[in-house]
């Protein structure tokens, strides 16, 4: 159960600033990639990897480690930044993102990247995989936990709802799902493209335990995780309100920054904003959706 002191909070914020710089830098270096969804999901990953999950570089092949499936695989720069920072592979690899012979593919590849638990990139499949992992943990009477992160556009995929039934049918309370609720997909606002609303009601009607948190506020995220762990008999969906492009002013809430690398000037501006800034969890847009 994560408990966050003021010092922890400050450390996490500084950590997130550095990781956001890594994200922007690696996408700039690569010349392509997905900054928007990487920046929106980052704080969820930071809380999980630094305060919640039992997994680290030395023991990542330990069978009883906790597992995370990044179902919205295009946001892998955020995961790579975290894994590099935690020492799963040398930080120098980040500069090789999307390049030939790189261990860091454009979308996650579990066969190439240490610490990546599941390949993804084709949206809509991660919750099914996480269910399989949760069933496996239960079959082995293991206390390990399975985490999965979905995009709010991603849940338009039908398979997600097949999987949503499965998690509940098999009472997978060792599974915690996050919805990165940034309100945007590629072609615009999700409510304009294909609204999945009412969101919480949908998950609840499928039998999920649901929570809503501020996806850039570590205390709020930690509180959500604690409540998820405490809930027995059903999986928990944590709807995390986020800002796509979080932390880089000109990227925030802009569909156009879903899958585009910054140019040189933009890159420099982004880095300077992220050098000074107040850190993750402060400038949360009031109504992201």
């Amino acid at each position: 159960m994560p408990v966050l002191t003021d010092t922890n909070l400050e450390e996490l914020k500084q950590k997130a600033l550095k990781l956001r710089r890594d994200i922007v830098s690696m996408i700039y270096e690569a010349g392509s990639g997905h900054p928007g969804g990487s920046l929106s999901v980052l704080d969820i990953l930071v809380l999980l990897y630094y305060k919640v999950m039992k997994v680290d570089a030395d023991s990542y092949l330990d069978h009883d480690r906790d597992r995370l499936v990044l179902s919205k695989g295009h946001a892998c720069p955020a995961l790579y930044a975290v894994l590099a920072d935690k020492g799963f592979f040398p930080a120098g690899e980040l500069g090789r993102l999307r390049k030939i012979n790189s261990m860091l593919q454009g979308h996650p590849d579990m066969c190439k990247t240490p610490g990546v638990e599941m390949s993804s990139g084709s949206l809509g499949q991660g919750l099914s995989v996480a269910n399989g992992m949760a069933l496996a943990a239960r079959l082995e009477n293991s206390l390990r936990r399975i985490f999965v992160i979905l995009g709010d556009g991603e849940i338009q995929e039908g398979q997600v709802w097949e999987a949503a039934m499965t998690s509940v049918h098999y009472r997978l309370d060792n599974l915690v799902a996050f919805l990165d609720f940034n309100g945007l997909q590629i072609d615009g606002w999700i409510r304009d493209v294909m609204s999945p609303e009412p969101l919480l009601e949908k998950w609840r009607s499928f039998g999920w335990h649901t929570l809503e948190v501020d996806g850039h506020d570590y205390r709020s995220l930690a509180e959500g995780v604690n409540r998820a762990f405490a809930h027995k008999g059903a999986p928990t969906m944590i709807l995390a309100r986020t800002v796509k492009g979080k932390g880089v002013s000109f990227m925030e809430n802009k569909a156009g920054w879903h899958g585009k690398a910054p140019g040189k000037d933009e890159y420099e501006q982004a880095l300077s904003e992220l050098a000074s800034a107040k850190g993750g969890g402060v400038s949360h847009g009031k109504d992201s959706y």
Partner: protein
Amino acid sequence: MEKIATREAYGKALVELGQKMEKIVVLDADLSQSTKTVLFAEKFPMRFFNMGVSEADMMGTAAGLAASGFIPFASTFGVFATGRVYDQIRNSIAYTRLNVKIAASHTGITVGEDGASHQALEDIALMRVLPNMTIIVPADGGQTFQAVEAAVAHDGPVYLRLGRLAVPRVIPEGTPFELGKAQLLRQGSDLLIVAAGLMTGQALEAAEMLEKEGIQASVANLHTIKPLDGEFLIRMAKDTGAVVTAEEHSILGGLGGAVAEFLAENFPLPVVRVGIQDTFGESGTPRALLQKYGLTPESLVLAGKKALKLKNSPK
């Protein structure tokens, strides 16, 4: 002779292997009575997961179980086990090299009365183009048992193609089974018939018929379509000089496709493909369908003669 459908043999094999290996788990998508996974479900309810009518989710769940060290068998009809979930298999199973066994029942035209929507005639083609995928098409009940054992022993994704129709034993008892190795069932120097699944029996019958006309045909069972036994094909091609392929599948992209592609590049010679001629199936009894779509010993005899003619025509 006693007949048994390969799906039935599969169900029994699962129970037997499930007894020995705790890591075997089975998933089905509301067809467990038909795919015969029900036998495993009755014996090991805790290791059986009915996913309901949701094949995509079933494949993903199987991937997750495999990623955690289990050996999942995921079963449904061939059409739903391949085309319906192609992307799930591609991205979550093949690309990841996860240890998932896709055991598809009701493949081929002998599905019968249910008609074209339920007759998988292109499933091998779909699976064959996926890197890391192994494809096994057992010819009878005994070989199915060996195929399930081999699938378990192999670490990686496997597509196991099973049928609904009861078929007689065609592979002599005690014949060893090695993944990726063709089996020579009959030796003749004029041509080679390469067959899989229930067409193996048809090929043996055709060889008898050809013999009566003074044509000596070799017959091989190619139970593993991928990886292809290239060494065997070259050796036999050299010995015979003409090849006929026989499968209960489209002539495009399946066994015939694989053999023709391989030989064209490595030992060019006439290859005549017997199979479904790029068309959908229809309702009917399995017998009537085999007849109408030319999956008979008679068609193989004609194909054999065509191959011989090509072989003997001046280049």
